[in-house]
């Protein structure tokens, strides 16, 4: 005979705002289990009246069939006092102190909702249509638990029809917190030539005209404003370039459909999977040679592609019949993206033909995420919409640790339990508004995750804004070395605690010797690192000016080899630089005026790009290395000379490159041989360390490993040599991932 008992089942993970409770309800009904389900701040709790067999089946099916946007970290069941129920119900949310449950990232609109905006009377062309499987989440949440009253949907009272959906458990919109229709929900309005157009048909028709006549529009999206224009219209793209000021960074492009995208780019299967995922990030993919105007990608052979993720995107494409629109963030030079209507009107109206905004507040600013695929592995380069605030499980006790991140591409990380919770990409903290946004984001996430800070981990660099700010929190502070943190980020993600070989290659990070590091070959665990090798120090002339102008690094390398006679070299680069500037730079190097010694790998890429005459002054960050990578011939396996003693000496390579340039060797060959040489240096050192220390696990981290050519060569060579290679998938390898490494270092140190 069946023995019916009451069981309390606790489910933790990403189980709120993703249709989890209705799913449990329907499943319980199907299995004829009575009881209740309830959202608590620490997860979902279920009371199930069933027998042991029924319980097993219930748990099994929960694990197998949970909604696509949900994630289960843990499911536990225990017997409890018998609590008779007649049926299964969904109880109202309850706040429980202590542990908290995950907040869902924003989700791309689902196909069922896209159907609804064609068919449902009250949702025809209604751009805020959503259901439990899709729509805004993180961007609208103010507090937990995730209930309508704690979101910016609180301002909108549901009409009877929406209310009926919301309360009908059989409905796809049952407890869909942002549920809305054209009668009761938020509305778009178009601010155009001092008028405000509110009728959706009129909005779409004016928008269509504008986009088809080289207009630039500001569009309020999920986590902020975007600037858009017809990507096939050179004039419009140029206008947008001017509007974005000095920035020469390639624009992302939103394509009407995957089929449309394939006309301009060649996505691999894994890339298609990402392009169409619920996170719907910008994916960097190989572009086709013929296609969009030069200004879009600024001469690069890759394109940042994205597919529509909000109903408004689909509507704009459908009405305008465009195939591709430039889709760039609504901000200027390192300011945070604009989220408020009044700010958009104030800052953008003089530059844009029209502003398409809506009357729901964006609570949490969130940029579009950027990812790429190298050797079939995903790399998140900008972690924001669709990914944040997903937790990254580590194997360490991270509770109460606040890791501040760095300064550029900043994210921070909060420790909860064993998780690292990344903030959304925040950006360059030198900008005051961005720094304010950083503090806002910290306060928000602190509340959403009921985070109680006990320990701060920050960079060694005392001038970093976040480092200075962290000092004022009145908490113990640990300083983690930049490159150690880069390696630790991957260690945390892959749950590695043993000694590893870490290659941390990037632009700059302050070293323990107060010099500027950036090509660090470390033997490390989470506690300590041994700086096994690095590029020989050269001077970085003019500090940050040296990072903006690659020609300076080229001269710095030439100076190291040829001294002040470098000005007499027969180098095409020198013909581009005024004699006075050459003399002045040499004088600066000779007397070390505002120069600092650096082992930066990023600056070596700069130097080589400038030597090849590809890029003398950056118009966007890392332009020189990106152009060098873009030109490198994948069929070329040539290498240059180097030698390694205490440090890595690439001077023979620089001389060979100079000769190749003089001999007019194609840049594609030089660029490839340079990349190959860097990989050869890495392999040489890794093998040496393996022999000496018997370590076989290799971690690659730091912004340099966003270089697709370099990274895929690394995969080839390291795997051939039977190393275990780790490159973070969840944490960005650039400084956006630093915070997770800081978190892990802090957690490990604290546990000692």
């Amino acid at each position: 005979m069946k023995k019916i008992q009451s069981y309390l089942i606790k489910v933790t993970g990403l189980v709120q705002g993703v249709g989890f409770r209705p799913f449990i309800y329907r499943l319980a009904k199907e299995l004829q289990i009575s009881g209740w389900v309830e959202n608590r701040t620490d997860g979902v709790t279920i009371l199930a009246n069933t027998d042991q067999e029924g319980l097993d089946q219930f748990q099994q099916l929960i694990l197998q069939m949970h909604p696509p946007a949900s994630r289960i970290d843990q499911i536990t069941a225990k017997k409890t006092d018998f609590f008779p129920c007649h049926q299964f119900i969904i109880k109202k949310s309850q706040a429980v102190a202590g542990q908290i449950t995950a907040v869902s990232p924003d989700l791309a609109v689902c196909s069922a909702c896209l159907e609804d905006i064609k068919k449902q009377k009250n949702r025809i062309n209604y751009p805020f249509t959503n259901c439990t499987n899709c729509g805004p989440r993180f961007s609208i949440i103010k507090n937990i638990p995730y209930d309508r009253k704690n979101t910016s949907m609180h301002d909108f009272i549901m009409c009877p029809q929406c209310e009926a959906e919301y309360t009908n458990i059989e409905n796809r919109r049952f407890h869909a917190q942002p549920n809305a229709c054209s009668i009761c929900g938020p509305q778009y309005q178009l601010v155009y030539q001092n008028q405000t157009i509110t009728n959706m048909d009129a909005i779409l028709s004016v928008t269509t005209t504008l986009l088809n006549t080289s207009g630039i529009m500001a569009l309020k999206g999920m986590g902020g404003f975007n600037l858009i224009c017809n990507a096939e219209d050179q004039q419009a793209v140029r206008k947008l370039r001017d509007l974005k000021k000095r920035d020469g960074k390639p624009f992302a492009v939103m394509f009407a459909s995957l089929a449309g995208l394939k006309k301009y780019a060649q996505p691999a299967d894994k890339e298609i999977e990402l392009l169409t995922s619920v996170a719907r990030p910008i994916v960097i993919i190989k572009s086709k040679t013929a296609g969009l105007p030069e200004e879009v990608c600024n001469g690069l052979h890759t394109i940042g592609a994205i597919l529509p993720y909000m109903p408004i995107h689909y509507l704009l494409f459908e009405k305008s019949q465009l195939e591709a629109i430039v889709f760039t963030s609504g901000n200027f030079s390192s300011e945070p993206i604009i989220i408020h209507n009044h700010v958009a009107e104030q800052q953008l109206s003089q530059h844009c033909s029209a502003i398409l905004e809506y009357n729901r507040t964006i609570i949490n600013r969130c940029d579009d995420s950027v990812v790429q695929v190298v050797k079939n592995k995903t790399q998140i380069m900008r972690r924001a919409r669709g990914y944040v605030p997903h937790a990254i499980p580590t194997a360490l006790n991270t509770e109460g640790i606040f890791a501040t991140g760095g300064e550029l591409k900043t994210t921070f990380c909060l420790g909860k339990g064993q998780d690292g919770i990344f903030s959304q990409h925040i950006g360059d903290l030198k900008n005051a508004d961005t720094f304010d946004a950083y503090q806002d984001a910290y306060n928000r996430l602190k509340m959403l995750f009921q985070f109680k800070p006990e320990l701060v981990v920050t960079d060694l660099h005392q001038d970093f804004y976040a480092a200075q700010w962290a000092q004022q929190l009145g908490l113990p502070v640990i300083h983690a070395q930049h490159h150690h943190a880069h390696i630790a980020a991957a260690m945390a993600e892959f749950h590695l605690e043993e000694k590893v070989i870490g290659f941390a290659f990037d632009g700059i990070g302050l070293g323990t010797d107060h010099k500027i590091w950036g090509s660090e070959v470390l033997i490390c665990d989470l506690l300590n690192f041994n700086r096994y090798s690095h590029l020989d120090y050269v001077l970085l002339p003019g500090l940050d000016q040296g990072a903006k102008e690659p020609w300076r690094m080229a001269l710095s390398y030439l100076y190291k080899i040829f001294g002040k006679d470098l000005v007499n070299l027969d180098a095409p680069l020198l013909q581009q630089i005024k004699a006075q500037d050459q003399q002045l730079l040499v004088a600066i190097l000779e007397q070390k005026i505002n120069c600092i010694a650096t082992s930066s790998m990023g600056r070596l890429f700069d130097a080589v790009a400038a030597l090849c005459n590809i890029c003398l002054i950056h118009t966007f960050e890392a332009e020189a290395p990106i152009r060098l990578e873009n030109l490198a011939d994948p069929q070329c396996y040539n290498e240059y000379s180097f030698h390694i003693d205490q440090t890595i000496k690439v001077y023979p390579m620089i001389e060979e490159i100079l000769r190749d340039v003089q001999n007019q060797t194609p840049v594609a060959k030089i660029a490839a041989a340079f990349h190959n040489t860097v990989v050869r240096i890495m392999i040489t050192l890794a093998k040496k360390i393996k022999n000496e220390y018997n370590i076989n696990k290799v971690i690659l981290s730091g912004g340099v490993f966003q270089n697709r050519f370099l990274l895929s060569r690394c995969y080839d060579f390291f795997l051939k040599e039977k190393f275990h290679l780790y490159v973070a998938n969840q944490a960005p390898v650039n400084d956006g991932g630093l915070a997770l490494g800081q978190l892990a270092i802090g957690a490990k140190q604290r546990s000692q």
Partner: protein
Amino acid sequence: MNTILLDHGSGGGLTSELISNLFARYFNNDILLQMGDSAILPNLNEQLAFTTDSYVVQPIFFPGGNIGKLAVCGTINDLAVSGAKPLYLSCGMIIEEGFSLDKLEEIVSTMAHEAAQAGVLLVTGDTKVVEKGACDQIFINTAGIGKVNPKHIEIVTGKNIIPGDKILLNGPIGNHGMAILKERKSLPFEAPLQTDCQALNKVINEMLSYTEQIHFMRDATRGGIATVLTEIAEQKNYGISIAEQQIPVDKSVAGFCEFLGFDPLYVANEGKFIAIVANGVADELIQIMKKYPGCEKSCIIGEVTEKSQGKAILQTSIGGRRYLQKLNGFQLPRIC
């Protein structure tokens, strides 16, 4: 006799010769000529400001001035920005054996000229000569006394600063620091650069006579205007907002700074000061300032705000905002 000998500082015959032939001749005034162990000053009957500074600049001669000019103007300016009327200076010199007497005379004559121009008397002094290598050519210390009108007594503390106050600057920044650097390192930079070293007491005096509503002044020497503004924002716990576009920087200085990777906001000046004044008198004060040579480009560069407490914010010319930081010694690169 055309170089300084150790005996010039021994207190003997050569010393008195140096004093009478050089210092007394150039600095010539009744108080100095008492030649006592102390200068006896008239009864000033007012509150006094008293300051001192030492000058060790290299090179000692540079475009637009020399170490003597700095020593006089620097101390005068410290008094003037404190709301005081500078009256008397002392002058202590430490000279390296073998230093050229001609050069010394040029320095002393410059000092005398600057003091006379500023209406200040050099009333007491001391000279020491040290062995070769014990100092680098010449070091000068000056101390100064000025009197302060009780109405201006809080300028030095900035106690009366309130949100809405305007921030005034008396001209282009960065000239001194960059001119000295170029000269010291003999850098091959074509455009001419010259120190802005000048005494500010006359312009400040007229400003003080015009209004009691000058709430704070400071000369922007080492650390530049950024350091002055971040310090005052922090001390007063108000926000300070300045606009990059309003801040005058000579083209040559801007170009040189950019090439070397320096931010002119942080570069030293020797004739520039920041005044924080009541909104109502700002425009009039600018008109007064503009009349004085070297202050023609005086302008309002920003204001004190209630927001952003304790921080100085730069509205950049490309449209962003940046919190200015106090420099912790050497500037480190930060672009990753």
